[in-house]
């Protein structure tokens, strides 16, 4: 009877494969797992690898997603310390950190992640109400601080929920938490709108009056400046003329030699200057040279 060695090898291989399927399991890098022995969690696994286990009725493996879950809680209403109604909602990044603690609480439900989030939602609601009540509205919205109060509120919620998780030991870990919505009750929005409208009105009016007043200021300032410049220039011109007169006066010494002649010459040139344009002159016979008309030629000697 001839046994084919190949047949043996193949048979062995099949047994090994079947055995591996029964006795081993893999945990991926995105998962954590817990091994239960007769339903009791006995071995948590947080590192990805290939692991051995006893086959089914003895041991069973439960794996959970270990990646960070995004969760946004319901919008809940809370009263601030100074009695404003504020609706808040936060986003949370959480993950399963301890499968042994997580398993007994949530493995029973069809979707352990959703079940955990339902619980988180309840706790967050209470935590938020408590934290919001400790802060005035100006900690949430303010133009005077640089956001430290806002961050402080987020940190308070985070710290509170984390300590709650720790006391209850759910095997959950919160990676980050932040406010996602910050709103007012619907009825309040209307009064905010009314206030905003009147603020806008005030602002529009202010712009208008400010503009007019400022324009007026500019105009009058310009007029004053122009008048100043002109006055300065007039002063300067007077000064210059004065200088000219002073300089010209130096020549008076020359005329001083014979004031009579000087005055005569000045009068002559003034007369000439004043009669240059479009003048009408009326003479009688006494004015020289019209005295010639009187036929008196001898006045050559009289005058």
């Amino acid at each position, binding site marked *: *009877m001839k046994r084919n060695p190949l047949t043996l090898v193949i*048979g062995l*291989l099949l047994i090994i494969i079947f055995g591996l399927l029964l006795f081993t399991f*893999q945990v*991926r*890098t995105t998962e954590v797992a817990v091994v239960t022995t007769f339903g009791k969690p006995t071995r948590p696994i947080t590192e*990805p690898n290939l692991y051995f286990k006893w086959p089914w009725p003895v041991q069973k493996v439960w794996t959970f997603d270990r*990646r*960070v*879950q*995004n969760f946004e809680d319901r*919008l809940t209403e809370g009263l601030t310390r100074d009695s404003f109604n504020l609706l808040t909602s936060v986003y949370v*990044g959480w993950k399963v950190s301890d499968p042994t603690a997580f398993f007994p609480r949530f493995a029973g439900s069809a979707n352990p992640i959703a079940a955990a989030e339902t619980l988180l939602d309840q706790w967050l609601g209470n935590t938020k109400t408590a934290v919001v009540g400790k802060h005035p509205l100006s900690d*949430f919205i303010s133009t005077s601080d640089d*956001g430290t109060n806002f961050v402080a509120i987020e940190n308070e919620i985070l710290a509170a929920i984390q300590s709650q998780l720790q006391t209850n030991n759910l095997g959950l870990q919160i990676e980050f938490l*932040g*406010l*996602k*919505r910050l709103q007012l009750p619907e*009825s309040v*929005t209307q009064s*905010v*709108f009314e206030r*905003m409208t009147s603020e*806008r*009105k005030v*602002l529009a009016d202010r*712009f208008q009056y400010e503009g007019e007043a400022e*324009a*007026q200021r500019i105009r009058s300032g*310009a007029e004053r*400046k122009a008048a100043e*410049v*002109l006055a*300065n*220039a007039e002063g300067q011109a*007077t000064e*210059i003329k004065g200088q*000219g007169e002073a*300089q010209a006066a130096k020549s008076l010494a*020359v005329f001083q*030699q*014979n004031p009579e*002649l000087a005055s005569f*010459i000045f009068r*002559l040139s003034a*007369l*000439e200057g004043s*009669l240059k344009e*479009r*003048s*009408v*002159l*009326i*003479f*009688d*016979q006494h004015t*020289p*040279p019209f005295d010639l008309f009187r036929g008196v030629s001898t006045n050559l000697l009289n*005058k």
Partner: protein
Amino acid sequence: MNDHDHPHNGLPEPVPPPETPVDAGSQALSEALRSSFAIVKFVMVLLVLVFLASGFFTVGPQERAIILRFGKPVGEGEKALLGPGLHWSFPYPIDENIKVSIAGLQHVGSTVGWYAVTPEQMLAGIEPPAGTTLNPIVDGYALTGDTNIIHTRATLTYRINDPIRYVFSFVNASNAVQSAQDNALLYVASRFKVDDILTRDIAGFQEAVRRRATQLVENQDLGVVVEQCVVQSSPPRQLKDAFANVLKAEVMRSKVLNEARSYENQITNKAGADAESLVNLAQSDRARLVRDMSAQAERFQEILPQYQDHPALFGQQRLTETLGRVLTNVQDKIFLAESPDGNRKELRLLLNREVPKPKTEDTKP
């Protein structure tokens, strides 16, 4: 991939050892069995080859791949990432290759601060009708530092710089990025004044949002880098007119101010020019006065000796000469002869604003 198991299972049956005496029929049967066994062997080897060959995979230019061996990444950090090209890994269930797209830039939009719009309205670019209130469940908005309500939304553009973290540490990392963006909008709006967000400091607001989002994404270690953040804000639809009026008033103000400034320019320039010409005139007056006086003095100097020689005659001569010159220039000359009886004569003047005609004046003898 487990198909190769089945041929193995079917294998032992076709090889029962031939025990019957050799006859033609059984010999033919054993021949047939042997040859079919050879075929099965060949098929098996082929299947093993196919199994191994199925471990080949290609990585595209915008992708990286990570091999998980028994669920654990092969290699550490950057070394675990396989670049574009052909690669080989053991087939499942030993290895598993996971491809990660690092394609260019990813976008997430944040609408937590925007009023509810249906996709159709968004496409058509129309706004839903505004009610008198905002329902917090459906309508998003942000509260500003000065307790105003505004709408604001943002699009964040980011790049994956740590694909291992991005894929293996988060169920949905882009969702986490979006949450960070939402928080950034809320946070920054709560510290800004409404006018700064909407008109005065749009860029500053956007920059602050970008900074906050970048910081959050870094703190939460999402494995991404924020590239760009575009923010769009608008006043509530309910108050559109009120906000528009403020804008109009602001425009009006700058118009009025500009007019005033141009008036200012004009008037000061004119004053400057006038002043300059005034000074110039004075300067030329001064020069002329001085020159005139010195010229006259010179002339006086010259004629003084003549006058001293014949004072009376000189005076007469100058007077007559000057009169003669004056009379030549004068337009109308009227001479009143003395009447012989010595009576006074009456002269009537008709003054006219019009250009005087040569014969307007009349003389009454």
